[in-house]
């Protein structure tokens, strides 16, 4: 691990623990992450007994060299973007810990678990009300969007 920056050392450790002891429904392809520690793809499965049971989603994590003092850029990617009131059809997620409420005490694993619980508590599959407008006009990087977080119940 010599010669790595502090952010890479931290990511290496997070990757190892995620590969060794992944939380239920979460799995990471270590080969993709090993190739570039600053870019991960994580597979998550919809939990049993929820609207997303049996569905598979892919989360993309991008990290800057200021991680963990700077939050990761997290989006859904791939064919299946969950239909959820806080997830736009381009994969952007409206979740406060991804921007304003980010803390270096959080981790890739805690972000995955937050997103899983956000999906699990959903009662009705629908896109955010402003989905069409947002997707048409927003920046590629969701961190460039200042969200107004509301409605924490969903």
């Amino acid at each position, binding site marked *: 691990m010599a010669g790595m920056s*502090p*952010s890479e*050392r*931290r990511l290496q*450790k*997070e990757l190892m623990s995620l590969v060794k002891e992944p939380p239920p429904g979460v799995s990471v392809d270590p080969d993709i992450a090993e190739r570039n520690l600053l870019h991960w793809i994580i597979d998550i499965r919809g939990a049993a007994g929820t609207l997303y049971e049996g569905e598979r989603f892919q989360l993309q994590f991008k990290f800057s060299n*200021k991680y*963990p*003092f*700077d939050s990761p850029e997290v989006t859904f990617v791939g064919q299946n973007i969950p239909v959820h009131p806080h997830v736009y059809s381009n994969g952007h997620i409206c979740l406060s810990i991804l921007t304003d*409420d980010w*803390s*270096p*005490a959080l981790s890739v694993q805690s972000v995955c678990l937050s997103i899983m619980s956000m999906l699990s508590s959903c009662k009705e599959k629908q896109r955010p009300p*402003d989905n069409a*407008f*947002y997707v048409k*006009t*927003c*920046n590629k*990087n969701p961190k*460039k*969007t*200042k969200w*107004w977080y509301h409605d924490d119940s969903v």
Partner: protein
Amino acid sequence: MSSIINAIKSILHSMLQLFWFGKKTITNSLSIYIKTSGGSTISVDLDPTWDIKNVKEIVAPKLGLEPEEVKIIFAGKELGDNITISECDLGQKSILHAVKIKSRPKLPQPRHSLIDEDEEQGSKPLCETLRDTMFSNEDGSRNSANAEDDSSSTKVDKKVHFYVFCPTCKALKHGKLRVRCHFCKSGAFTVHSDPQNWNDVLIPKQITGLCENSPELCANLLDNLEPTFAEFYFKCSEHTSLGEQDQAVPLYLIRPNLSNVPCLACADVSDPVFVFPCPEGHVTCLDCFRQYCITKLNERQFWQHPELGYTLACPAGCVDSFIKEIHHFRLLTDNQYAQYQRFGTEEFVLRSGGVLCPQPGCGMGILVDDPDCMKITCINGCGYVFCRNCLQGYHIGECDSVEDGLKNSGSGGCYSVDPARVADARWDEASKVAIKVLTKPCPKCRTPTERDGGCMHMICTRAGCGFHWCWVCQTDWTRDCMGSHWFG
């Protein structure tokens, strides 16, 4: 080769020894000052292997006393006769205090006599008897002495470690704890009890003691209204003491990593570590602490606290976790610390209702007494006269009316040039235009803000402002903004 050098050394050494007639042989001399109760200072060379009894034998004749009539005080304790010099945490030019033993006054705590050899443990200087575990947090409530394996239990037993910022070395150094009278500042002071935690050391008037310099004077002047208190201070242990004024600031949030806590950020276990003053005591390594400071500094996210100054809270966002001793930011490089000081000063000026001179390269902070005064002159700086509201050159009337402040300059030139060319080749005008296009002032605190892409929902990044505003409307961000022009 080295054997030859050693041989020469030993010859030189034995030659030198010839000069020390009746005296004991000094192999590794320590140059020490001894302050007497009379106020005079004696300079002596001591051998670290000697004990305090030897010191008394040297010092007493110089005071016209018998060795039994003298007690030696150092770092809050009367030193026992059989303590050796090397056990006393003395450095070059350290100061011992020699006091004549009077008829012993009544004390809250029974004094152990010098003959009582069993009590030797209590007669070592304070810094030798304290343990790291006591200072693992502010009030000593959490004892991190978990002896899971051998390595950690041996660590726990270690003598206390203090870290200081030394103004002489200009760096983070190991520190030495010293004690003096809170009232008369004399080092001839013995404590009644040992400090048990950081609060005892950092908060004044926690530990009582006896001022041996002039106990009657200190007691009388205080009118017996309060006991004589100990005052704790720190010295750098890595350079020769420059006298009693040579002090260092304790960086008490930097602590030995007794329980091998991994860094919050990089997850490495290192030693020492930075422990944030939050209830959870979040830990980062010193490198990540620096990285955290630099990240926050560049985003101008330090907080101007009314009592503590320009500071930071725990990176995990814990409440009530501001770093109270801002000397911890001396861990930054000189350049970064200079930037920290500049931002801190600017923030203080802005918080106090002042303005910063807008002239490039000036930036002087100006505090204005009259809140209605709009004409500001940069008196101690560049002399620029400007409007407090729009920060352009001073003008009469509404701010927007001075679009072309530069046009009136440079009249009466003797070159004849093409007016069209002149209009294109205006450097100042070009950068002025660029600033106008790229930046807008925060509607609340007027900090010029650049929008480098993203949505129209702006949040002022200046710590303490955090105003939500709309880039298009230049007022509060509303639902309507989100509905009609979130992204332009």
